[in-house]
């Protein structure tokens, strides 16, 4: 298989589309209304809301698929973040084009070449990007067959597609390239596509090996870190010790004279060194850092007080309600200080409160980017999740028109959300723009990544639920406090270097991802049957620490809160937790994953467990819109070693039509292990000097000895059904099941995350 990253820019499709918006209102996900011209939750503009998946954003077929004499090229604006979607998207295109994988090129996220699909995030890639390719490819295939039919003068239904060749019954045949000659793919996609038969898929539903694995296991060039263009210079930045600190002095001159140093950049509070050799850059960075004197201007809360502090900060209140069991989710416009929710009434009222500390994305490889300013084009190679929003941000930061900035995605270390990727790309762009002609590679150091990546927000939740005498849910009141989960690059001020340079730009005001996807309130509305739901999101707009998207956003703690409540209600009504959940659900797919997980685990109502052991069960449908996931697990605690050992985990998932079963399993296993680490161990240490977690000793995460003994993933396939996404669906249920199992093992129901340091302070 080949890809072509460096194909020259041939046309400007977006210009054509800009004026072509259709004013059509469309019910997305039942309740959220979007219209043309509006942005979707991933920062891309909807042009035709009637079309499936991301064809809404980019309705022209030739934006996705191009066929010329050199062959077939499929483009996606989505990127590989480590989840294997590049392989899965490729599979979808191959089946729908009826082409072997190796017979076409597949190009991802390049502002010069591919559709703008906004960010690759939120388990949306298969649902939106996969769906777009699914339909675009089917429509192009039909066009090719029609064209071939005309050329061969044979009715289209009599043609057979095989290995990239269209065959007539009499033996005549045309290649796709021949068939496409004279065919204009610059056509608006249609709402429906010619059907394909799931049973005939050669790739979809098969565990096709990942296309990126060979390079990754043999030391091939696989990451932006591995790029070494001729003449490349190495840069390092020097950051303030904390947010708001201003530079008093730094010995720029002395550092400028160090061996190999080409340039020391000092602009306001922005410091960077550029050197010929990477090690020289590191030494220069250290010298500059040691010489720098800073003035701290802000005070910071500590871990013990952060949740109280959150409640004192300026905020906007978003009230979401759902009336009636089948009612629509309605989110009201934000108000400054909403009236508190009325107390729940019912036969029995239970209350659950939970807290979560700040967490790090903690990419193993700190963020890195490469940029060059040459021939009037600033090209940035980046592992950003969204090359198009990044391009706009960088263009704004440097005062360039967008057309003069090209952002090309190249893989980096896994990011799990909004980490330092965009910021380091801005660093590289900023430095390259000042040093025309030289490719500049910026590599952040570990402490810089930890200290300056946007954190996963600290949160507090409070849930009150009323039930009737039989245990049926009658009223639901969920309140939560959080800083934003979506500080994506909506203006140049959202890029860290923009705050530091003397001509600084402020970040645009925070605004949450609206329901039903939700932000801090993601998954706060229960899937369970309850006629009266109200969720109060206290959206804190002034951040003591910069926060943004990290896998599953608020769903991690909201699912913990909801599932702890379900456990408590089950106990209060003398019901088995699994049976109780099933009784409160109507969605057959939800019930199916719960039953499957319980059965595979061998769940029994009252297991006879040795001391210090516990089992837990939890369920969620991610965002109530995407993949279903139920998890049962068993833990053993060791109070002497202050340790929780996850013994075995059994999960059942339903992500719609499965494209790559092994890839899905890999994602679910990964989500479970990662969420175990977050839930048991992880918290950013904060205090007088700001972020005090700078490395893996001050931010410990799970290591091999703590990995669960066993994880069994059961998949319920739904051939012909929409793709629902997978990468973030296990985070909430894993955490909730752990909380429940640890409660049983220790006799203490603890809803303070992370669990281990709170169990044994």
């Amino acid at each position, binding site marked *: 298989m080949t890809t072509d990253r460096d194909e020259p820019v041939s046309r400007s499709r977006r210009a054509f589309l800009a004026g072509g918006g259709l004013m059509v209102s469309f019910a997305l996900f039942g309740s959220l209304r979007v219209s043309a011209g509006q942005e979707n939750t991933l920062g891309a503009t909807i042009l035709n809301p009637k079309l499936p998946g991301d064809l809404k954003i980019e309705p022209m077929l030739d934006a996705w698929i191009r066929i010329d004499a050199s062959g077939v090229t499929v483009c996606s604006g989505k990127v590989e973040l480590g989840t294997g979607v590049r392989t899965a998207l490729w599979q979808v295109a191959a089946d729908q084009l009826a082409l072997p994988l190796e017979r076409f090129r597949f190009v991802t996220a390049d502002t010069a070449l591919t559709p703008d699909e906004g960010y690759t995030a939120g388990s949306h890639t298969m649902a939106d990007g996969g769906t777009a390719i699914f339909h675009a490819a089917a429509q192009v295939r039909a066009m090719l067959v029609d064209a071939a039919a005309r050329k061969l003068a044979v009715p289209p239904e009599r043609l057979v597609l095989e290995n990239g060749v269209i065959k007539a019954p009499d033996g005549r045949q045309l290649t796709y390239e021949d068939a496409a000659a004279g065919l204009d793919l610059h056509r608006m996609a249609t709402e429906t596509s010619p059907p394909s038969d799931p049973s005939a898929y050669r790739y979809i539903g098969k565990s096709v090996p990942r296309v990126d694995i060979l390079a990754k296991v043999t030391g091939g060039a696989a990451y932006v870190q591995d790029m070494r263009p001729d003449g490349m210079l190495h840069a390092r930045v020097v950051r303030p010790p904390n947010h708001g600190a201003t530079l008093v002095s730094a010995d720029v001159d002395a550092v400028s004279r160090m061996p190999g140093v080409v340039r020391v950049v000092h602009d306001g509070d922005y410091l960077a060194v550029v050197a010929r050799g990477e090690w020289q850059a590191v030494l220069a960075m250290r010298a500059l850092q040691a010489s720098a004197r800073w003035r701290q201007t802000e005070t910071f809360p500590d871990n013990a007080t952060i949740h109280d502090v959150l409640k004192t900060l300026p905020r906007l209140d978003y009230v979401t309600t759902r009336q009636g069991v089948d009612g629509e989710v309605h989110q009201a416009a934000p108000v400054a200080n909403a009236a508190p929710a009325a107390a729940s009434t019912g036969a029995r009222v239970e209350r659950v409160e939970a807290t979560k500390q700040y967490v790090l994305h903690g990419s193993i490889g*700190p963020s890195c980017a490469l940029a060059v300013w040459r021939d009037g084009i600033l090209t940035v190679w980046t592992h950003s999740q969204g090359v198009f929003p990044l391009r706009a941000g960088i263009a704004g930061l440097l005062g360039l028109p967008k057309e003069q900035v090209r952002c090309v995605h190249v893989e980096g270390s896994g990011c799990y959300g909004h980490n330092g990727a965009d910021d380091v790309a801005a660093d590289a762009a900023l430095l390259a723009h000042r040093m025309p002609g030289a490719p500049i590679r910026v590599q952040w150091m570990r402490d810089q990544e930890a200290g300056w990546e946007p954190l996963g927000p600290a949160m507090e939740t409070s849930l009150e639920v009323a039930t009737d005498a039989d245990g049926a849910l009658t009223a639901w009141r969920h309140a939560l406090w959080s800083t934003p989960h979506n500080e994506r690059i909506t203006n140049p001020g959202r890029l860290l270097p923009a705050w530091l340079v003397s001509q600084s730009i402020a970040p645009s005001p925070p605004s949450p991802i609206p329901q039903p996807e939700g932000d801090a309130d993601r998954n706060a509305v229960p899937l369970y049957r309850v006629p009266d739901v109200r969720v109060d999101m206290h959206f804190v707009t002034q951040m003591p620490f910069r926060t943004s998207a990290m896998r599953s956003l608020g769903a991690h703690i909201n699912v913990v809160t909801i599932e702890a409540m379900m456990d408590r209600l089950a106990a209060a009504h003398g019901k088995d937790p699994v049976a109780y959940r099933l009784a409160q659900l109507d969605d057959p797919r939800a019930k199916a994953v719960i039953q499957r997980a319980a059965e595979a685990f061998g769940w029994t109502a009252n297991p006879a467990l040795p001391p210090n052991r516990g089992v837990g069960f939890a369920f969620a449908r991610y965002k109530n819109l995407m993949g279903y996931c139920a998890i049962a697990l068993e833990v053993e605690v060791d109070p002497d070693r202050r340790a929780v050992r996850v013994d075995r985990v059994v999960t059942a998932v339903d992500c719609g039509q499965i494209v790559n079963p092994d890839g899905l399993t890999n994602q679910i296993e990964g989500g479970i292990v990662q969420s175990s680490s977050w839930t048991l161990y992880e918290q950013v240490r904060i205090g007088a000097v700001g972020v005090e977690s700078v490395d893996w000793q001050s931010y410990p995460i799970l290591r091999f000895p703590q990995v669960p003994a066993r994880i069994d993933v059961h998949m319920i396939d739904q051939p012909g059904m929409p793709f629902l996404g997978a990468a973030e669906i296990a985070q909430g249920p894993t955490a909730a099941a752990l909380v429940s199992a640890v409660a049983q093992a220790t006799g203490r129901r603890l809803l303070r995350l992370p669990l281990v340091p709170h169990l044994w302070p």
Partner: protein
Amino acid sequence: MIELTVNGATHRVDVDPATPLLYVLRNELALNGAKFGCGMGQCGACTVLVDDRPVFSCLYPVSSTAGRRVRTVEGFGTPEKPGPLQQAFIDRQAVQCGYCIAGMIVRAQALLERVAHPTEQQIREHMNPNLCRCGTHMRILDAIRAVAATGELHRAGEKGPAS
């Protein structure tokens, strides 16, 4: 000039003798396998073998390689002909983002060369220095177990130092 032997080939590089081996491997020799992760010996992404022992190349002065054999993941096999651990990682698709994987393979190689059939506990303890953030651990362990079961990497008759 410093002379060093990497994957059987001898190179002469003009660098400060205290330069960490990682930077020499990546920049002077253009080898991608060893990765910069933390620069503090806390994550294992930069792991290489020096005289069969796994070391953090980010903390290994290039001058320490004098008279020693450096091996990186590139030396274990190629895309066309992967080595046993590389093949096991491919067979089990033991990769997500993959940034940690080269370091994982290198560290596992050291164990399996020294111990033919390590126990589960030995494997986990041995892999303790290396971090994975995607949560690919189950598959990484599975791949190592698979090669451990064959014992094919074990160097017969060689008794490594106790650890």
